[in-house]
């Protein structure tokens, strides 16, 4: 598995595709553009795919789903797109082959600094002005989900800050700059210095991860096979272990 090193190489490949094809002389290269929240979990999934398809190299490039969608729209050469939400997949609907397959789900949770110093117990605690809370801005997917969940619970949140992405929320919580934040379950699982306080009824707002083969792929069969692999046994195990829900 040379996934991490190859992720960097993937950028270089965009500039000199032919040179990379020559390097992978023994087989094909599959470029996967994946949402940042998939970064850790995709490594074992890609490894098991490489085991099943000898000679195939999976190169993964991670970024925010919106950024990846923008790259695809600007013509980035890639084979598979795995998005963190369906709205973003819809943006590139004209550039995918087949129907996007939802392979994982994610729900929201409260993240607190280790030890939960402010003793946050419920979502309603985040409406307490004495508790410094940080959420995603309603303009971005995690913020939209947060707003839906708060509305369902009948809670009016009073955030000290509305961040542009989950990572910035996590950073504020992990550093103790905030007493609580709302992030995805899997974000807490992969972060140090934070712990989760489950939200009652969180399953009412589910974030769905679709994947699709891209029409621009040079290896459409492999691309489709990778999308199928994401719903396969090995992938399901890895995803569940990382805290994702399986549809």
């Amino acid at each position, binding site marked *: 598995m040379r996934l991490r090193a190859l992720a960097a190489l993937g950028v270089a490949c965009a500039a000199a595709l032919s040179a990379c094809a020559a390097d992978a002389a023994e087989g094909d290269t599959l470029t996967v553009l994946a949402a940042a929240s998939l970064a850790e979990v995709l490594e074992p999934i890609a490894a098991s795919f490489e085991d099943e398809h000898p000679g195939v190299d999976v190169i993964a490039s991670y970024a*925010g789903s919106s950024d990846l969608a923008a790259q695809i729209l600007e013509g980035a050469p890639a084979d598979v797109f795995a998005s963190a939400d369906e709205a973003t997949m819809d943006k590139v609907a004209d550039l995918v082959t087949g129907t996007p397959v939802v392979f994982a789900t994610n729900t929201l949770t409260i993240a607190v600094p280790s030890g939960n110093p402010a003793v946050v117990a419920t979502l309603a605690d985040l409406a307490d002005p004495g508790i*410094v809370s940080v959420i995603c801005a309603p303009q*971005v997917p995690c913020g939209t989900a947060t707003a839906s969940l708060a509305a369902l619970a009948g809670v009016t949140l009073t*955030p000290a*800050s*509305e961040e*542009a992405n989950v990572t910035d929320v996590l950073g*504020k919580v992990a*550093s103790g*700059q905030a007493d609580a934040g709302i992030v995805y379950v899997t974000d807490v699982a992969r972060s140090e210095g934070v712990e989760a306080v489950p939200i009652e009824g969180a399953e009412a707002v589910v974030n769905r991860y679709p994947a699709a083969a891209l029409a621009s792929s040079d290896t459409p069969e492999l691309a489709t096979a990778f999308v199928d692999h994401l719903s396969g046994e090995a992938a399901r195990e890895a995803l569940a272990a990382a805290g994702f829900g399986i549809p």
Partner: protein
Amino acid sequence: MSGPRWLVPLALLGALLVAAPLVGLMARASWGELWTLITAPESLEALALSLRTAVASTALVIVLGVPLGFALRAVHGRVRAALRAVLLAPLVLPPVVGGLALLYAFGRRGLIGAPLEDAGISVAYTTAAVVLAQTFVAMPFMVVSIESALAARGERREAIAATLGASRTRILARITLPALGPALATGAVLAFARALGEFGATLTFAGSLAGVTRTAPLEIYLARETDPDAAVALSLVLLVVAVAVVAIAYRPAAMRGVR
């Protein structure tokens, strides 16, 4: 002085490298909607906050940065070199590093922030935090501007005033400061621009809430994901300000009234 001819293609390449992104930004702007996008409530709120905080930061930079410039001239040798290195560090520090540094100093669990928090004073997530971050990154411009202006002028007039019995404060107010006028103006203009553009430290340290801490650069960062046209429109406003500021700060000496 025009140098050898082979410098020309390299210079052209350099100019292209600098100008292409600016032109690229302009090419992406939806000029027809530009005014609507800039005057949208979120944009105006962010621009107004940026303006308010940058003015406050510039005032702080003048009040604190000018004495620092003097202090730097007052010490000598290695002490001056070391002090200068520390004071100018924010100039070259990666923005996110500056943010982390501020966080660990003034954050809720920071060196100074924690005792303040215990005393009931919270800087985090306030407009004051934005001003603090901006002052941190903008201060070096004033320090370096004052220090080099002091180095460039002799102290003959001050010496004469002193023999005539003028107090140090009087000498500073009547002789030194007026002579430093152009340097002070240049330092202030550059500090203002740097404050206006501050992003990393604000994002890491102050947070992002509309009207409180979400300055124009943070609004651009957020809009980039959801409303790229609005992001480009706001970027153009900051681009115009940046170009204007540089034009003012580095205007030819003749126009500055330098004797």
